[in-house]
């Protein structure tokens, strides 16, 4: 075999999957199609009117006391600290508190849901093969519980946080409860699926031997799943918390007293300098959240 033939053979035998290739092509075609027929007006984006808007915005972004005068760091510092003391710091803490409460509710709820969504656990006789099959109604019952939970999890995931908050707003009003529930629903859906997948991938030996000794489901869950999976679940938990911090900022746009509320407030008043200041404050708390989360995750990795 010549060298070229060998290369051809390698190229020909490379692993590939018809479905994945088709999917990539469909995705690519969708993107091309979206630009070809979508209602996107590039001309308008760069039109003189838009440019005038942008120019005005860039002037108004300058801190108000410094508009039209020379830059002075002392004045800028006073302006920033006043905004922080006024409501910035409180709004930032509210945003963080909402995200922490929400992810904890989501984590707690997902623990239960992931148990009943795991195919190997939510079955007639988990981890064991029965000598004679269980009655049909029992098997059907467990199937309903398992698939039902999986469907509920999918619905919870499918509803975006912002939409859930918008709908819950009509029931609870613009209180932190609305934001916490909205974030918790979506994230419990995600954490629940991840938890169920982790349980399904657990090595079978330990739970099987425990089950053969006659241990109940809850005992298997607490003595096998909890020690085995807690580190991984904590990693997922902190990853999701990072997105919760971002989302909890945004939910303020609906009138809940997080940072987003004051961002929207500044926008409606036309105070572009305040708007940008609060957006940057949002960046700061997202960074704080990311740093705390990455420290926690590396501690979890080290401990496991």
């Amino acid at each position, binding site marked *: 075999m010549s060298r070229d033939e060998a290369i051809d053979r390698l190229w020909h035998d490379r692993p590939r*999957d018809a*479905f*994945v290739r088709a*999917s*990539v092509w469909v*995705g690519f075609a*969708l*993107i091309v*199609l*979206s630009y070809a*027929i*979508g*209602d*996107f*007006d590039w001309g*308008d984006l760069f039109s003189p009117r838009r440019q005038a*808007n*942008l120019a005005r*915005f860039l002037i108004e972004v300058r801190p108000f006391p410094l508009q039209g005068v020379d830059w002075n760091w002392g004045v800028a510092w006073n302006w920033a600290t006043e905004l922080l003391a006024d409501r910035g710091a409180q709004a930032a*803490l*509210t945003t963080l*508190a*909402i995200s*922490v*409460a929400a992810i*904890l509710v989501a*984590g707690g709820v997902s623990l239960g849901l992931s148990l009943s969504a795991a195919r190997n656990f939510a079955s007639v006789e988990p981890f064991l093969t029965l000598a004679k099959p269980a009655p049909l109604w029992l098997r059907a019952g467990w199937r309903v519980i398992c698939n039902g939970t999986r469907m509920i999890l*999918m619905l919870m995931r*499918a*509803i975006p946080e*912002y*939409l859930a908050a*918008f*709908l819950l707003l*009509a*029931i609870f009003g613009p*209180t*932190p*409860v609305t934001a916490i529930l909205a974030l918790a629903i979506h994230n419990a859906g995600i954490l629940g699926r991840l938890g169920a997948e982790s349980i399904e991938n657990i090595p079978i030996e330990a739970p099987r031997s*425990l089950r053969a*000794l*006659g*241990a109940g489901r809850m005992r298997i869950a*607490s*003595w096998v799943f*909890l*020690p085995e999976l*807690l580190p991984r679940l904590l990693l997922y938990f902190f990853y999701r918390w990072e997105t919760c911090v*971002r989302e909890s*900022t*945004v939910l303020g*746009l609906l009138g809940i007293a997080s940072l*987003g509320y004051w*961002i929207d407030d500044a*926008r409606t008043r036309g105070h572009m300098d305040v*708007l940008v200041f609060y*957006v940057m404050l*949002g960046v700061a708390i*997202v960074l704080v959240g*990311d740093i705390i989360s990455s420290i926690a995750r590396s501690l979890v990795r080290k401990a496991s």
Partner: protein
Amino acid sequence: MGPDAIPRQSPLGMRAAVLLSLLAAGGISLGYLGVAISDLTPSSGGMATAWKFLSRAASPAFVSEARFVPADAPPLIMIALDAAWNTLLTGAAAMGLSLVMGLVLGFAASSAWWRNPGVDGGTGLDGVLRRSAAPAICAASRLLIILMRSIHELMWAVLFLAAIGLNNLAAVIAIAIPYAGTLAKIFSELIDEAPRASARSLRGLGASGVQTYCVALLPCALPDLVAYAFYRFECVLRSSAILGFFGFPTLGLYIRQSFNATNYGEVWTFLYALLALVILADTWSGAVRKRVLA
């Protein structure tokens, strides 16, 4: 030997400390927010609204419920399909833009293309440039990625609305910026974690940085990248629908309008359109990921 053979201790052990401190954080948060269990009882008006809304879940509207419907208005189903189509197109456009930006930024932010022990030495201009400019580019792109990622797509939308006003492309760009940042972060990490042996031998044979990157590093990271891109496609549809709340013609716009007009049947029609779209994407991307990562 029965279940009693299992020791009767707490299965938590040291883990209890971790879980307890998390619970304490939750307690402090709820205390700061002033949230009590009683807040979970909705107001009487809220209860009535909730009931009116939920009772329409099984009977979504098929024709418009508005009091005055213009004679030339398209049927509700067509509006819902059109909004879903717009949601898909906006999402796909944003995904395309973020893939391009994410790949470029991810390349710049990965250290694999410039950190090549044994090759980047030399006192010539090339060596000096490689040691000074490349780390600077890398650090700058990492900073940019952090900034892009830390502002939510809805915040970008608010900023664009404030800066230039309503334009459908602004929605695409607003979504694409944080998505590109996240994609670039994941991508640069994938590249940096990819096995380096083949890259090193190619460099040793005299291949340039870009050649090594395209031939040795990119293919290693490609399956993970495809899997991640498909996962994000699922998210981009949700983001694109939500941007409708700010006036862009995606599903969120119609959900907001119908809900505010208390036409709850219509809300459910649009909600089901959104659920169908998202669940379809969820299933598709799940299937792709399962095969790619298998």
